[in-house]
């Protein structure tokens, strides 16, 4: 019980830090960045690095105060560029953990967050991709990878439901089959649901959530694109493959 009360307080503290940090970075760091770096690409790189380091600090903070614990497996496989990272999405903080592991990372951001005062500045400076554009979204993602950004995509498109089967959209696979890039699945396993969709932050889990982040081997995209198979069909095959893979892997670690 005491442990739980502590985690509610610690969670409130961490989230306040996140919000205040977001405003400060937006008000101070990014205007400075724009001043010293007029070139958009260079600015985006620096902004992405700044977000990476801030998130690294933030994940460290959450671990130190005991809100979560994190175990990393094979993260050295993420130290590249132009890498498409496909992960399952059990928790709101998945993206924070992944960005803390990947420098120079782009991601797809919900159009609504452009109006969020905590996040607007950083999102704009880092050149993150909006999911607003509809048909341009895939092209934007392919272009980001081509210029060397890493890109994190959650093939589910939203957080994994706590119960019931996982559902995948085909967008992530469509990016993978159209971009000539490294494609690396990452399995995120959490011991107890932490900030799943529809649960307020103060309803903390009964025990401290333990995250296991496992970076898997790169996919051999040739198996999906062999014999000039059209992108439309390759994306269907890959989506099916990812669905089976993530379902199996998340169950496996849960059982272990």
């Amino acid at each position, binding site marked *: 019980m005491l442990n739980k009360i502590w985690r509610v307080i610690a969670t409130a503290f961490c989230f306040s830090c996140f919000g205040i940090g977001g405003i400060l970075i937006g008000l101070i760091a990014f205007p400075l960045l724009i001043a010293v770096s007029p070139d958009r690409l260079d600015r985006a790189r620096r902004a992405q690095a700044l977000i990476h380091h801030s998130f690294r600090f933030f994940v460290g903070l959450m671990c130190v105060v005991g809100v979560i614990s994190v175990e990393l497996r094979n993260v050295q496989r993420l130290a590249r560029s132009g890498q498409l990272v496909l992960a399952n999405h059990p928790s709101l903080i998945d993206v924070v953990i992944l960005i803390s592991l990947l420098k120079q990372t782009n991601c797809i951001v919900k159009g609504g967050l452009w109006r969020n005062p905590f996040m607007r500045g950083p999102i704009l400076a880092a050149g993150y991709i909006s999911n607003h554009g509809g*048909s341009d979204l*895939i092209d934007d993602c392919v272009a980001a990878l081509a210029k060397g950004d890493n890109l994190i995509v959650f093939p589910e498109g939203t957080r994994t439901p706590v119960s019931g089967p996982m559902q995948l*959209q085909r967008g992530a696979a469509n990016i993978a089959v159209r971009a000539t890039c490294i494609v690396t699945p990452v399995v995120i396993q959490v011991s107890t649901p932490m900030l799943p969709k529809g649960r307020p932050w103060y309803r903390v889990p009964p025990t401290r959530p333990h995250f296991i982040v496992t970076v898997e081997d790169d996919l051999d995209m040739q198996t999906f694109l062999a014999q000039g198979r059209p992108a439309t069909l390759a994306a269907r095959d890959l989506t099916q493959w990812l669905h089976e893979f993530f379902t199996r892997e998340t169950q496996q670690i849960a059982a272990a």
Partner: protein
Amino acid sequence: MTKDEIYAWLSKTLEEMFELDPARITPEANLVDLDIDSIDAVDVVVKFKALTGKRVQPEVFKSVRTVQDVVNALHTLVQG
């Protein structure tokens, strides 16, 4: 191109691009039921452009639901 020609082209294209059973492709068939999403629609549009040289605004497809809707939209386009 007449509507019939567009329909013939479209059903053949859908069959090839998405490995659909031709029996499922009818004018009334709903794109959602055929598991064709907005990304797929863009690919169909790109093929159509290669065939006719007509630029298609993706917005045209916002309101389409069935195969016949697509035929109508493309037909309006080649007329215009």
